[in-house]
């Protein structure tokens, strides 16, 4: 399946809903969206990956790039993911220590709000 992207603002945090496959072909679209959001002043991001069916290292690179961009503005990029096959990639690459990974969007927003 191709990649579907959507986003909305919730409690002052921009939630990016990602559905489908994030790979070397589709990852540039996610990169463009994250760059656009940051350029528009959205520095608190939550990327909801619950409907992501496939994620490769190109996708990981895009997420790391997004995290770098928001951190340059003292922002944050948290992830929502409970799928073991996706989480495994984060563990293999050590990126579980880099991203905040939550079970639900609500949990991610609550965690981010509590850190402010």
């Amino acid at each position, binding site marked *: 399946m191709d990649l579907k992207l959507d986003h909305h603002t919730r409690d002052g945090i921009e939630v990016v809903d990602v559905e489908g496959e994030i790979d070397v072909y589709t990852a540039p679209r996610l990169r463009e969206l994250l760059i656009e959001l940051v350029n528009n002043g959205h520095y608190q991001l939550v990327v909801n990956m619950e409907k992501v069916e496939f994620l490769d290292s*190109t996708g990981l*690179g*895009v997420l790391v790039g997004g995290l770098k961009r928001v*951190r340059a503005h003292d922002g944050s990029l948290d992830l929502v993911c409970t799928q073991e096959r996706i989480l495994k990639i984060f563990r293999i690459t050590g990126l579980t220590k880099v991203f905040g990974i939550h079970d639900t969007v609500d949990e991610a927003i609550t965690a981010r709000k509590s850190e402010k």
Partner: protein
Amino acid sequence: MATVEMSFTPLPVHVRTARLVATAVARRSGVGEALLDEVRLAVGEACSRAVEAHQAQCPDEPVRVELTGGNGRFEVVVTDAVAAGPDDGTSSSAQPAGWPEPANGVANGTSPLDQSGPPQGLGLAVIAGLADDVQFARTPAGLSITMSWPSDGTS
């Protein structure tokens, strides 16, 4: 002789096709369902790396993939057509640039946030973490990544 051989134009859009074919042949070869996700991801990573290398150096040459099942193993060989460069890391270690140290989850042991661009070597780190066995071979034709997993099939 490989069970299935394919070659494809080095474009990102074709990597998904290679993943799907590899997964189908792995399933047919008796690789367990629990390992199919690992096959799919590792093959995708190897093909993505090859496509990136081809686009930089030989965009007209196809990427080759050989899939072989039997004798209790399912083996995938992804071969690029990129000649060895002076700084590709193969001259001294027989491993490509970006290959992570075994103890490190992330290439070169550095945080990806310490790097100025997208993290390098993540794909190879993923392959190393997923494949049951991984080997590199630098030949005159290019770099081959051979990955294999256990299977219960015979053909």
